[in-house]
């Protein structure tokens, strides 16, 4: 089905979406690129001209850069490990026959629908507050000294909160993939004498391969950009400043646009590396 008429109609009808997204991508990105080469301090002298790669160099050399990369990788890596490992286990458990499966599923998925600011605040105050938080009560009950979570265990806290939000996502997708596994395949392997662990490693895990890759890539992209959880809990203090958060601070808090923009470009490059792999998988899937 393709006549000149329908093809030109198609082009017309695709135009608004394409133009809007093109604008949304190109205009601000070009501006960021432009600012990143300039010394630009809106509150302290404004645009003070071209500085070449200075911003890139000083963002790279600043004392906050490497810690922020480290923090980013720690959060992304920590959350990925937790959500993937527990996601696989939970998916396998939820795939088993049981009573009230639908309700359990709903309970497990729920955190994904909680807005980030709410989950961050609830965890920070109602659970992790060193005086009145539920954890403090729990620690005291066992005779331990309550932990001042946000300062003493800031990274652990944030990883815990973010993992809680993303575990449902991993579980849901892995569960969907698990359910598409042909049960006859499992039965055949059982007849062939494969033990539960062998079945898991030789049949179930390979079947989940693609879903796992997708989960890891998509989560990585979203986790690289987490914002509200840090904004609401530590505000970037106590070693929880990710690359994204550092850029945010440079741009909006210290209003050093040139420096922040250079950092923004680093963030874009980092995200693109992940995105390329994800797009390749999605693209392959498009052909089938």
């Amino acid at each position, binding site marked *: 089905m393709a006549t000149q008429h329908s093809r030109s109609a198609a082009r017309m009808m695709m135009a608004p979406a*394409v133009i*809007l997204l093109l604008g949304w991508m190109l205009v601000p990105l070009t501006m960021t690129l432009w600012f990143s080469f300039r010394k630009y301090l809106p509150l302290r002298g404004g645009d003070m001209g071209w500085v070449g790669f200075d911003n890139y160099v000083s963002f790279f050399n600043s004392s906050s850069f490497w810690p922020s990369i480290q923090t980013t990788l720690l959060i992304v890596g920590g959350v990925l490990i937790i959500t993937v490992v527990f996601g696989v286990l939970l998916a396998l458990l939820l795939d088993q026959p049981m009573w009230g499966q639908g309700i359990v599923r709903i309970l497990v998925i729920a955190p994904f629908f909680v807005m980030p600011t709410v989950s961050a605040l609830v965890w*920070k105050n109602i659970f992790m507050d060193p005086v009145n938080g539920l954890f403090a009560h729990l620690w005291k009950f066992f005779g331990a000294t309550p932990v001042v979570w946000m300062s003493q265990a800031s990274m652990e806290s944030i990883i815990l909160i973010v993992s*809680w939000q993303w575990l449902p996502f991993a579980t849901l997708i892995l569960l969907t993939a698990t359910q598409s596994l042909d049960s006859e395949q499992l039965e055949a392997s059982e007849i062939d004498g494969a033990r539960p662990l062998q079945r898991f490693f030789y049949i179930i895990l390979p079947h989940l391969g693609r879903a796992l890759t997708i989960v890891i890539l998509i989560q990585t992209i979203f986790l690289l950009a987490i914002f509200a959880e840090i904004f609401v809990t530590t505000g970037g203090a106590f070693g929880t400043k990710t690359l994204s958060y550092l850029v945010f601070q440079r741009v909006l808090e210290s209003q050093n646009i040139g420096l922040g923009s250079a950092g923004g470009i680093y963030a874009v490059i980092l995200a693109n590396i992940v995105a390329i792999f994800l797009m390749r998988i999605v693209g392959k899937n498009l052909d089938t």
Partner: protein
Amino acid sequence: MARAITNNRKIINTTAAWLIGLLIFFPILWTILTSFKTEAQAIASPPLFVGFDWTLENYQVVLERSNYARFLWNSIFIAGGSTLLGILIAVPAAWSMAFVPSKKTKDILLWMLSTKMLPAVGVLYPIYLLFIKMGLLDSILGLTIVLMLINLPIIVWMLYTYFKEIPVDILEAARMDGASLRSEILYVLTPMALPGIASTMLLNFILAWNEAFWTLNLTAAKAAPLTAFIASYSSPEGLFYAKLSAASTMAIAPILVLGWFSQKQLVRGLTFGAVK
């Protein structure tokens, strides 16, 4: 798995799954419970699980004191508006991609998705600047447009996968029956794809409702939605557990309900169709 298993195993499965399910759900449950306590009971030691005086006072206070209704309306307008606007723009685009595919279709689709991967901080200042210049800062309109743009790739993508399932024959039949392009989309495609369009809208509404980068950075007092309203509770002087819980419960309850309806679409929309 369609095979007979012992009741014992089923009991073990059920117990384990329910325990883990409740553990994961517990923070939400606890928040809801706390919202019905008095402030004193909310921080009581040891914590009270059920033996407290149920009260709606917190809800009344939150509703009266904080202009909650305005934040709620902002959230509804922004999430709803960006969804509707997105659908209007995405339906024709998805029609083109699904029914008049060309060699470039795949590339365009992937490119659209890749814009979703752009980290927001990378463009924060330019958008901020443009918003000031255009007077869109702290406006519902501006936020609606931004949220529409960041979710447009997902809308186009989801609609595309739903449209692909509709046989081209039927659209061609409409064309032979004398339908113009407009009638074809309005009377034939849209009603047939209605379930898909509805779930796309649902997921998009949820994503927009929970979005917490642009809503925090581009609003102040006027256009702030619930995400920003909740974030304002992080300042210490405003902190009361029971009231925080009541406000939180009100902010997440509608979405929890909508979200439970959209589990399946969620997988489709968030994995770009790569997991079915």
